[in-house]
């Protein structure tokens, strides 16, 4: 069973559901939280600093690209310009009833982000035993990256230094 989990993790990453089901067999070792970067104000940006716990699991460039793409998506959603003003004025003119029928631009971008994260999980993160949680599920405060260890090899590979993530039994 251990070999099967291991194999599936490495060779069958495209089926996202597999990873969800295998969460039961692959054990959660640690969670890393990428915090928000407020240097440019209250707009949504995440820090691109590479956490040390991921050093052995994923390449720096891939990680940075994911975070930068997410930051770009959020910047696009929160961009203040002609379109957002138009949307705001139109909404005000209709006493905000237009939101009952129309989706805001922010919501459209959030859907794009969800799709992007799922695609990243399938292609890049799941094969490495990682899983990104959409920041919207954490109140846009953090990007949570769960690190999974294969149960069979947990004793040797749990080099995670955190206290709460220990799965040793």
């Amino acid at each position: 069973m251990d070999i099967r989990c291991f194999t599936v993790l490495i060779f069958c990453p495209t089926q996202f559901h597999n990873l969800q089901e295998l969460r039961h067999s692959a054990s959660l070792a640690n969670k890393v939280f990428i915090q928000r970067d407020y240097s440019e104000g209250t707009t949504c940006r995440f820090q691109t600093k590479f956490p040390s716990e991921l050093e052995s699991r994923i390449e720096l460039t891939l990680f940075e690209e994911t975070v930068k793409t997410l930051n770009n998506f959020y910047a696009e959603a929160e961009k203040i310009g002609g379109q957002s003003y138009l949307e705001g004025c139109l909404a005000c003119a209709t006493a905000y009833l237009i939101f009952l029928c129309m989706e805001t631009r922010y919501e459209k971008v959030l859907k794009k982000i969800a799709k992007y994260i799922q695609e990243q999980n399938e292609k890049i993160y799941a094969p490495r035993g990682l899983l990104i949680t959409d920041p919207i599920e954490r109140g846009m405060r953090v990007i949570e990256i769960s690190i999974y260890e294969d149960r069979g090899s947990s004793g040797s590979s749990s080099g995670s230094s955190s206290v709460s993530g220990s799965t040793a039994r």
Partner: protein
Amino acid sequence: MKNCEYQQIDPRALSASPLSAQNPAEKKVQRPRRKWEAFPGKNRFFCDGRLILARQNGVLPLTLGLIVVTSGLFFAFDCPFLVQHLTVCIPMIGGVLFLFVVASLLRTSFTDPGILPRATADEAADIERQIDTSGSSTYRPPPRTKEILINQQVVKLKYCFTCKMFRPPRTSHCSLCDNCVERFDHHCPWVGNCVGKRNYRYFYSFIISLSFLTSFIFGCVITHITLRSQAGKGIVQAIQESPASVVELVICFFSIWSILGLSGFHTYLVASNLTTNEDIKGSWSGKRGAEESGNPYTYSNIITNCCVTLCGPMPPSLIDRRGFLPPDEAIPAAAASEMELPPFTPKSDANMCTQSTKDVLERMLHSSDFHGLCPSGNPKTSPLVQEVSSAPATAEPYLSSGCSRQLARQAVVDPCPLLSPVAFSKSNRRDSLHSINPAFRLASPSPTLSRSALVLGDGPDIGFIPQH
């Protein structure tokens, strides 16, 4: 590293495997619960989670009632005369304004103001690790702040003990609703909700349109009485013929000062990209020295500030009220993470009190003495709280839950925008708004609380610096 406070957090409890294996039968029995049913803040939900309101919403019916009654009297008694003698546009304009006011008011009241969901257990543990102190479990460490640079200016982020996270900039914890709200402006009892990032524009439209409506009704009623008295035998007879107009006059006269004043104040805030909270506390007014003053969020251009605040993109609600709780979360884990409130418990004040007590128990690993902390807002408990340095933010809910009715009464009686009899000047209005700010509101019962709250400004979580 001994970290007693979070000993009980165990990520294994979060993974589905142990729980789902244990009780597959229970999953089928219970109906899927929505997340709003297990929401930890003090809010009420309607329409299966679509509408959200603060728990203390006693004055919202009064606001609605006043608006509807005054407008009703106007349409019933003044409009027929004015249509006859002037023009039919008057009730049309009045109708449009009335609809706009009511729509904005309902939108403000029932929209999520920008509540931040509380940190998950893992997140909280991660943050604890990062700000690890000596690890002693016998006293609460000094208040936690984190300094960051925003647009080359130093801003302090405070740690919220209730929500277990560092508050983002411009976020404040509303103790009446027991939630951290983004871009927190104030808690408005007249609207029955906090005013924050997501509903500020609705609040602003509400007060602006209400100013127009009251001025319009006031003007029309004056015109009506004048025309009648000119046509008839004087003003006394005019009043006798149309007594409802006097009622409207009185209501409008008293409201107009406060509403117009409030609109002016908020227009100033919008133009300078400030919140009421920041303005009252004087965060950017240069009190602390020339090099630290200056609002880092302003665009230094009135038009841009207005557009950004009022017409900016509409952020989504972060609390996902209508999502379904996963079955394993609905069952309280044995590890009893503090975030996982037993969802079957009805959210009465007593229960919130009990749960907060449980939090303190788990956190401080003390015995039953702390049941005494669940009182009816007795100020004498504050020295006790201070001594043992329990989480002040959890102390707040005790006071607020215990004396919430008293507070609500105070909030009604005390001047808040609409009907303050003496709040004509801006400084008076600031005082009245001062009373809206829950930090100050809750400071009034006890002198120790008020001193610390006023000094440190933000309310409970950093008010209790122990043993200085």
